[in-house]
């Protein structure tokens, strides 16, 4: 899908999940055998218009996520190009074993879209947050795991997923007025990380909601004469290990930034990728902690855990001083 300035602005304003619903309208024009399945979240996933316009391509299985993945598997086996969507914790955890057996073991092509992941719904408590989904999805052999950097990339990911072979999890982060990383159209390819800033002192690997904040942090650091490369790791799995290695050697520091638990997400993926590297640089992981902390407003939570541009820059500066 080609992005333009008006789409980029609109998508950012409405946020990642409404973007998903809107993009499905375009997808239906291209993919004849498309099926979009939900668990009673049509409004939350921005699919109300889609539901009216393409009733034959839309299916609500009710609040029953195990059935959601099973029905998606049957439809996929019958030759449909299937997307499922619900809130990230329900999309990935209630039906984890169905995902393992049907999408992992049997390799059925279903694209799962986990909406409002991370702590976007922090005011609703941790039942509705997902700080474990990257870790879980990454653990399934054959699963592709995508974490788009902004709403334009959500659109790109959805179109790329529809044409991709094999099961995919797309993790949607952020709320309305999602920061824009890409102001113009660009080339998106599953599995190919994108370098946004070039600097040789440190490398910041960021994903999802944290990409724009990492770019901003690099500008703060630049004023302190710390030159940072910033890489958008939109595909957590499969990870381009050579690319990661190349950008991890001989740096003062490499940094991972993600709106996810420190366990099993980007921090782990980068660390695993670099484990055999000889000139390995020290790694700093900026993420949410391994605990169910007190909930609250989205931006308050990000600020509390240094997941804003200032917090990222300060954490890096402090670490470099050690």
């Amino acid at each position, binding site marked *: 899908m080609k992005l333009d300035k008006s789409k980029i602005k609109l998508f950012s304003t409405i946020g990642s999940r409404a973007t998903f619903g809107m993009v499905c309208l375009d997808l239906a024009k291209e993919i004849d055998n498309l099926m979009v399945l939900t668990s009673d979240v049509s409004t939350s996933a921005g699919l109300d218009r889609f539901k009216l316009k393409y009733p034959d391509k839309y*299916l609500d299985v009710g609040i029953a996520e195990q*059935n959601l993945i099973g*029905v998606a598997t049957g439809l996929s*086996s*019958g030759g449909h190009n299937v997307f499922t969507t619900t809130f990230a914790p329900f999309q990935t955890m209630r039906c984890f*074993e169905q995902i393992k057996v049907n999408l992992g*073991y049997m*390799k059925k092509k279903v694209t799962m879209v986990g909406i409002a992941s991370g702590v976007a719904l922090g005011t609703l408590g941790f039942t509705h947050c997902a700080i474990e989904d990257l870790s879980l999805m990454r653990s399934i052999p054959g699963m592709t795991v995508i974490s788009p950097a902004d709403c334009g990339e959500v659109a790109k990911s959805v179109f790329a997923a529809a044409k991709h072979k094999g099961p995919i999890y797309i993790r949607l982060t952020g709320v309305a007025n999602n920061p824009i990383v890409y102001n113009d159209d660009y080339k998106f390819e599953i599995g190919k990380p994108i370098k946004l800033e070039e600097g040789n002192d440190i490398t910041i690997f960021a994903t999802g909601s944290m990409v724009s904040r990492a770019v901003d942090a690099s500008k703060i650091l630049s004023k302190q004469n710390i030159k940072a490369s910033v890489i958008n790791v939109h595909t957590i799995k499969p990870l381009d290990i050579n690319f990661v290695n190349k950008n991890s050697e001989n740096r003062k520091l490499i940094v991972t930034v993600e709106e996810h638990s420190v366990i099993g997400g980007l921090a782990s993926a980068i660390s695993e990728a670099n484990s055999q590297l000889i000139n390995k640089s020290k790694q700093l992981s900026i993420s949410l902690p391994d605990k169910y902390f007190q909930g609250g407003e989205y931006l308050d939570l990000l600020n509390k855990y240094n997941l804003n541009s200032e917090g990222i820059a300060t954490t890096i500066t402090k670490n470099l001083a050690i």
Partner: protein
Amino acid sequence: MSTDTKINNIKSLKKKLLKNVVDTAYYAGASSAHIGGALSCIDIVSTLFTEFIKINPENFSKKDRDYFILSKGHACLVYYAVLAELGFFSRDDLKSFEKTDSFLLGHPILNEKYGIDFSTGSLGMGLSIGIGLAISLKKKKSENKVYVIIGDGECNEGSIWEGMMSAPHFNLDNLTIIIDKNNLQQTGKNEDIMSLGDLKSKISSFGWDAHSIDGHNIKDLYDIFSQKTDSKPKAIVANTIKGKGLSFAENNNKFHHTVLTKALYEKALKEIESK
């Protein structure tokens, strides 16, 4: 073809399946095999594959055909037995059952070459897949059908009831499920471990065209599968006997998963021969 001829054909396949099941269980040797739950659904499988499920090595690569899901995947002995008879692989291949690198392990593994559509064994997952397939066939305006065999113990799984709720909601009259109600599960009787109550009424109350029949009466099985339903999915509670067909295994839960010794194997062969 007269109904009597069809019934005779079903019985003839059943005898072959019984022999294949017993042979395969014996080939498993010390690694054991799920014998009881395979034998309880042998009449169901024989009836379905003789008269109702039209799959074969020629049409299997097509999407537009009938589908069979053995949701109670541990009953794979009877599944492999029928796939061998359908020509997906040879009876000789059954010797590799549960051996390293075999495609015939203790639960079915998806294999397009050998006629296995789905990897099953983790209980409670097959019904939902069947629902998705049935919806897919309807969307393609196909007349083909989907059949799912579910265990009675398997009905302990909550996911089965998510499926039970949704199949009538989607008016899936191209979907038939058969609950192999042999009244036993791994460690004992259903009623002691988790009572199922009046299963037919429960399923009927979810909106299915539900029936309760003798799951070893081939004529009854043939008749019920032949009946058309009006917009409802069909559920058949098949009252069966675990280990059916082998005197020493019938209603004996030791044969849920066990080693078939040489002595019992020989006894089984004699019993099959005398049928």
